[in-house]
């Protein structure tokens, strides 16, 4: 009911009153009859079964789903249409229509589809979201262009009409997709560049060691007969060209497919197909022999380009389907479908075996081939090897790669793969010597230092190697630990993740994304303009979510809305007959992200960390931050660490029900809602694998829509918070500090708190030389006009002011459902914040508003928030990490942008680098008290509850005009509290250290 009433104003603000009146009466019937407008909405909170969603066709057989639909602006669309036929784009679709080749493929995991839906919702309802234009501006569309599906060819108007206003939406939609794929090829002259990927198991028994030629090998391994064949349209006879050029440019064309060969069984390779890549390596006549010789017994990915068909008489040889279709189509692609292509029910079946190869492009906008060429220049590898002698001793040729269970990237040349024997042997013998498994090792190759991190799983070995210049050792260890956990969460265990061929493609995706982010592909810009590589490394190495602290009112709203969803009180939205059924799932908890920030978390810490890892390693937050996502639905089963991989016994007297757990991610615009669902216990038991439940998906979407309604407008306040409000302690730039040191000497003088508070308003204050005006940039923002000089007043001011009118309507509507008690625990700390501030101000006689770092919630930032003592702000940067909650608090990009400068960026680089070191030493000392030394002393010395570690850096400005050199000295301080909380600050050394000590103490109540 609450959902409904929340929707209405959204669709038609004028109807709001009527609906409120209807609340509680016959809401269900009324609304269902009422407006087709609601049905057009993407989130039909009601009758979900009748109105399947766009994602449905893409649900994988396994039940997994990875569906992302990014809103594009019109400009990039036109671009897309021009580029529509670049080879990579349609990789999945051809295979959609054919029977999978082997098990690896059939059972394959996530299903990815990118679709350009041209935003019908917004175009129809321009009042939908005041921000929409703004969001669209941010959408660049670059990187997505290669992945426009066939629907692009369709007439956009037809799509709009068909897509959203009829009951049989999926039929028309999917029908269009299908026929488009076929029609387009004839209508579009560029469509010759069709690409298909085929996975084949090489038939090694057929070939003997004497076979050297790639052509013969190809024939023996796969049953594909190749011929040299010049493309007639593009190349006449290459008479005058040199032999080498000929070899390079000549295409490799399939002449025939042998009977009873893997290729034949796949029913995907046909005469005339052009072989372009093998395992993503471009193949030419020059390297053909070499590449085929290197094929091992593992499945091989062959990439073919489909030939251009010039005349109507050029039907493909193995056509099994009568040709009602346009001549250019390849009937074999639909041949395995049991239904005629026009059948409305077809798409669901057809889309099943899509390999999720596009996730990389979907979420990062990065082209896979570009990633591969990028990776070629970097010595890195993800390997899963086995020590098992049974598997490895069969043949001991030099080229034998039996021990490689999994390899990424599948380059044929990789030094780390060549020396894998070294790693295997090390892991075999080192435990004999030291009693412990190898954690990492460092090798150098051609002067480049490479760190390899290991995890041993029984007889198997999972290792990753990264160059030191890009990934410091501490970071690679973190990546390993996190990936290890993520693999366990996603696949149940690491062994099954790598051993089951069905997960291979999923792993490929995961690792390509991981390498993409971890190796710092220069395209990523994560943390604002000041972000630098080391900063990114540090942020990535903290396994926590950056949180955005909203005002208490908004926080409450978020909690409210999420709680409502979690309560699963869906009575009004369910069919009569369903109403009395058991629920399919239990909602265990949710968490909400906006862009890359966590807004709200209702999950247990461990579950949240699991989910956050999934989101992090699929780069979803970067996607949410960069693009306005039209529709994102991800569904998959997971194995939460808490239930499956934790050794802690459950508390006596109660055991949580066993069952299955599912992760549901729903994204819309910049919001991402993660839901952990439980099947088991009191829920209906159903068969596994389970596809996403449309009902829950639509409910989740409805929940997201609630945040967008006018009277909630969380996005608005988030944006405001991000852009205008100083949501943390104000930062100062090192550059200005350096100038300040020159001109000002009174930095150590202490003045009363009121005076400092006044100073922002009073630029005439002697302290405020123009140099420092940057400090006081924030309070001048329009939102903060109600700034008061007395700190204690300001929270009330704020509550009474702008927020109140925003929040009241919703609160009213929620009425009795409002339960303040159910808000998260962090709220408890909020009340003490302002008082603390007041007390401190009077007690210490200096400005000391640490409440802002005190908890994630009670930020009341209306003024320059200072955590440092002294008359000047000396804070350069601050990061706080709460390991229990998995939350990171750091200044917003805007705040960082405000304190920009050349020197500042150097300072920050050093800050991030030393934080990584400091953090590393915290962890090592806390987790591994040295064991070799049996003296009691050692353990006592290292068993510390809190530690502080600081480094002072000096920068000396180059001398000019024989003036004395000016030096900038600044501290980087890291502090660990109670093992889980960590805080890192960077500040100018001019303030006495006692201030820092107190900042830590007061901030955390130690």
């Amino acid at each position, binding site marked *: 009911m609450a959902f409904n009433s929340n929707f209405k104003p959204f669709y038609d603000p004028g109807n709001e009153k009527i609906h409120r009146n209807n609340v509680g009466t016959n809401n269900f019937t009324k609304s269902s009859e009422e407006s087709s407008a609601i049905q057009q909405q993407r989130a039909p909170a009601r009758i979900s079964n009748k109105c399947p969603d766009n994602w449905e066709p893409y649900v994988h057989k396994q039940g997994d789903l990875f569906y992302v639909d990014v809103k594009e602006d019109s400009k990039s669309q036109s671009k897309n249409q021009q580029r529509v036929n670049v080879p990579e784009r349609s990789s999945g679709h051809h295979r959609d229509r054919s029977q999978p080749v082997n098990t690896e493929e059939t059972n394959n995991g996530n299903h990815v589809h990118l679709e350009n839906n041209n935003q019908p919702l917004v175009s129809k309802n321009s009042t939908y979201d005041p921000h929409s234009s703004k969001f669209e501006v941010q959408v660049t569309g670059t990187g997505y262009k290669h992945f426009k599906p066939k629907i692009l060819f369709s007439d956009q108007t037809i799509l709009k009409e068909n897509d959203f206003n009829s009951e049989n939406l999926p039929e028309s939609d999917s029908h269009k997709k299908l026929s488009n794929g076929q029609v387009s090829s004839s209508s579009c002259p560029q469509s010759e560049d069709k690409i298909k990927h085929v996975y084949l198991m090489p038939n090694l028994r057929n070939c003997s060691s004497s076979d050297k030629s790639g052509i013969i090998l190809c024939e023996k391994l796969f049953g594909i007969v190749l011929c040299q064949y010049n493309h007639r349209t593009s190349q006449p006879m290459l008479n005058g060209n040199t032999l080498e050029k000929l070899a390079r440019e000549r295409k490799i064309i399939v002449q025939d497919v042998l009977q009873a060969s893997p290729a034949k069984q796949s029913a995907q390779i046909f005469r005339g197909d052009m072989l372009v890549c093998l395992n993503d390596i471009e193949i030419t006549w020059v390297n053909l022999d070499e590449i085929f010789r290197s094929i091992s017994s593992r499945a091989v990915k062959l990439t073919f380009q489909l030939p251009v068909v010039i005349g109507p008489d050029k039907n493909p040889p193995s056509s099994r389907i009568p040709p009602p279709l346009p001549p250019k189509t390849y009937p074999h692609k639909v041949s395995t479908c049991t239904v005629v292509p026009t059948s409305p029910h077809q798409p669901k079946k057809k889309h099943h075996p899509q390999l999720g190869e596009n996730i990389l492009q979907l979420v990062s906008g990065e082209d896979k081939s570009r990633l591969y060429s990028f990776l070629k220049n970097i010595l890195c590898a993800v390997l899963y090897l086995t020590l098992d002698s049974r598997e490895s001793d069969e043949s001991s040729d030099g080229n034998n790669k039996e021990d490689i269970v999994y390899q990424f990237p599948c380059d044929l040349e990789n030094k780390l793969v060549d020396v894998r024997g070294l790693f295997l042997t090390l892991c075999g013998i080192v435990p004999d010597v*030291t009693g412990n498994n190898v954690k990492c090792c460092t*090798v150098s190759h051609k002067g480049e230092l490479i760190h390899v991190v290991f995890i041993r799983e029984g007889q198997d070995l999972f290792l990753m190697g990264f160059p030191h210049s890009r990934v410091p050792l501490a970071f690679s260890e973190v990546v390993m630990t996190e990936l290890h956990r993520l693999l366990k969460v996603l696949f149940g265990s690491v062994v099954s993740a790598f051993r089951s061929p069905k997960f291979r493609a999923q792993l490929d995706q995961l690792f390509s994304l991981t390498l993409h982010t971890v190796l710092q592909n220069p395209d990523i810009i994560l943390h604002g303009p000041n972000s630098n590589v080391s900063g990114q490394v540090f942020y990535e190495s903290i396994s926590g979510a950056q949180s955005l602290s909203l005002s208490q009112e908004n926080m409450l709203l978020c909690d409210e809305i999420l709680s409502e969803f979690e309560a699963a009180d869906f009575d009004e939205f369910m069919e009569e007959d369903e109403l009395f059924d058991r629920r399919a799932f239990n909602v265990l908890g949710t968490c909400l992200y906006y862009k890359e920030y966590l807004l709200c978390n209702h999950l247990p810490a461990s579950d949240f960390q699991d989910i956050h890892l999934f989101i992090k390693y699929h780069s979803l937050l970067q996607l949410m931050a960069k693009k306005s996502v039209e529709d994102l639905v991800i569904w998959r089963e997971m194995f939460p660490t808490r239930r499956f991989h934790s050794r802690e016994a459950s508390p006596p007297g109660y055991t949580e029900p066993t069952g299955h757990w599912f992760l549901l991610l729903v994204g819309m615009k910049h919001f991402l809602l993660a839901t952990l669902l439980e099947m088991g216990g009191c829920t209906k038991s159903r068969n596994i694998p389970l596809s996403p439940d449309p009902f829950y998906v639509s409910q989740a979407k409805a929940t997201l829509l609630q945040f967008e309604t006018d009277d909630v407008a969380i996005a608005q306040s988030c944006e405001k918070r991000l852009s205008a409000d100083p949501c943390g302690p104000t930062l100062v730039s090192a550059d200005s500090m350096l100038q300040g040191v020159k001109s000002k000497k009174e930095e150590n003088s202490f003045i009363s708190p009121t005076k400092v508070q006044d100073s922002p308003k009073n630029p005439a204050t002697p302290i405020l030389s123009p140099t420092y005006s940057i400090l006081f940039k924030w309070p001048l923002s329009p939102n903060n006009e109600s700034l008061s000089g007395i700190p204690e007043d300001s929270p009330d001011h704020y509550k009474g002011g702008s927020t109140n009118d925003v929040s009241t309507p919703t609160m009213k509507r929620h009425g009795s459902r409002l339960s303040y008690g159910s808000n998260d625990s962090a709220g408890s700390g909020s009340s003490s914040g302002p008082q603390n501030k007041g007390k401190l101000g009077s007690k210490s006689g200096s400005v000391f508003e640490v409440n802002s770092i005190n908890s994630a919630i009670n930020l009341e930032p209306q003024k320059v928030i200072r955590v440092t003592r002294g008359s000047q702000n000396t804070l350069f940067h601050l990061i706080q990490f709460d390991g229990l909650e998995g939350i990171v608090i750091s200044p917003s990009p805007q705040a960082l942008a405000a304190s920009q400068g050349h020197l500042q960026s150097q300072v920050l680089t*050093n800050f991030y680098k030393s934080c990584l070191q400091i953090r590393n030493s915290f962890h090592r000392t806390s987790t591994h008290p040295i064991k070799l030394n049996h003296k009691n002393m050692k353990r006592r010395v290292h068993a510390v509850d809190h530690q502080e570690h600081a480094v002072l850096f000096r920068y000396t400005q180059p001398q000019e005009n024989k003036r004395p050199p000016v030096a900038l000295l600044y501290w980087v301080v890291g502090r660990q509290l109670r093992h889980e909380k960590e805080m890192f600050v960077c500040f100018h050394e001019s303030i006495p250290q006692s201030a820092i000590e107190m900042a830590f103490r007061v901030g955390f109540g130690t």
Partner: protein
Amino acid sequence: MASYLVCLTTAGGVPLFTRTADDLKPLPFPVIGSLNGVHMFGSSHDVTLQSTVTEDAKIVWRVFHDSVTLIAIAQNDDADDCHYSNLLNLVFNAMVLLVGIEEVINMKNVEKFKKEIKVCYNLVDRILGIKGSWGFCQLTNAVEIIAAPENAVLQNFLDAFTEAAESVYGCLFIDGKVAVATKKWWSLSANELVLLSLLLSSLTPCTSRDIPVYLPDSHPTVPHRLMTFQLTRGIEVCVICGPLPSLTELEPEILRFWKPSYDSLRSVLKLSSRNFPTNLALDHNTLGFLLINKETNRCLCSISPTFNGGHPDETLSPSQRKEVLMSFYKRMVGTFFSSVVPGSESGPSEFSHQAMESYITTETHKCYAMMSGPHQLFMIYGEGIPTYAMRSITQKTLSLLTKDRNISV
């Protein structure tokens, strides 16, 4: 520090010797073979295996002059690799010191060399801390000194004695630390200084000895004679000479030259746990310090700087302080600070600005490090000292120690 050391020929992988800590079983031969094998396998693929880390141990490989491979297995104390390679470097130089570089590099008869190399076992054990205590010398690559007010007097005695021995290299060791040395002695390289001082402390005590040494950096091929004479318990004087004079010629001279210094020597010996003059009073929170001069390759260390056994509620015994000071040094140098330890500059060079000071606080102690010109001071304080006070106290201590004329670090 280290638990095992394996030395093999690089070409054939023949084990030359292994050293094992007392409480551990020796490594079985196949393990030694595999440890060397992985390294060889890597180098055949143009990949150099440098180190491997487990939860609590670290294995380091180094090849010297394509002739000798050293593998050390040591406790992993989160230190930069440079500390481990420094140790292996010292081990190799120790072999050169006692056998000569020709023998080590052009090993003709492996069996013969195996016998010859036995002379350096004690020194190697000493360097790696495999047996007995482990000092600051090999860690900092600077020779440890004792700063006594009597040093000025002793310098005259030493100069006179060295001249009588027809040498320019003379040095007086008190309790394993250098009290005074001739100018020429100080001009030796850091490696040589450290190795000579470790060599003296690794040898079993005797009244006088004459051993051939090859100075690894200055004269790796020419043998010199190192003659040592025990003056009294814990005090040795040594000279490095050419072929003359013989030990028997020099022995009678000892009494003549050193008898008048007996009282001074006794009073220096009293300082041997404190290592610096008693008239210098440090802050009562100070539990110990390590002062290094990067230019002169000397270090001064004290783990009982206060008189009355330190602060009443102190938590660390002297040996624990030493341990903490060492681990603090290892954590800092190579990551934030560069030092005379070779390779220690690669870590700090990743920062665009120079790290000047650093501190660590824990529940039992606090540590502070300060760089100032050639000096590096590492301090350890009790937990009672306020964090904000450490900086100024460390600064005061540094100026106190470096300005004092009796202390020539």
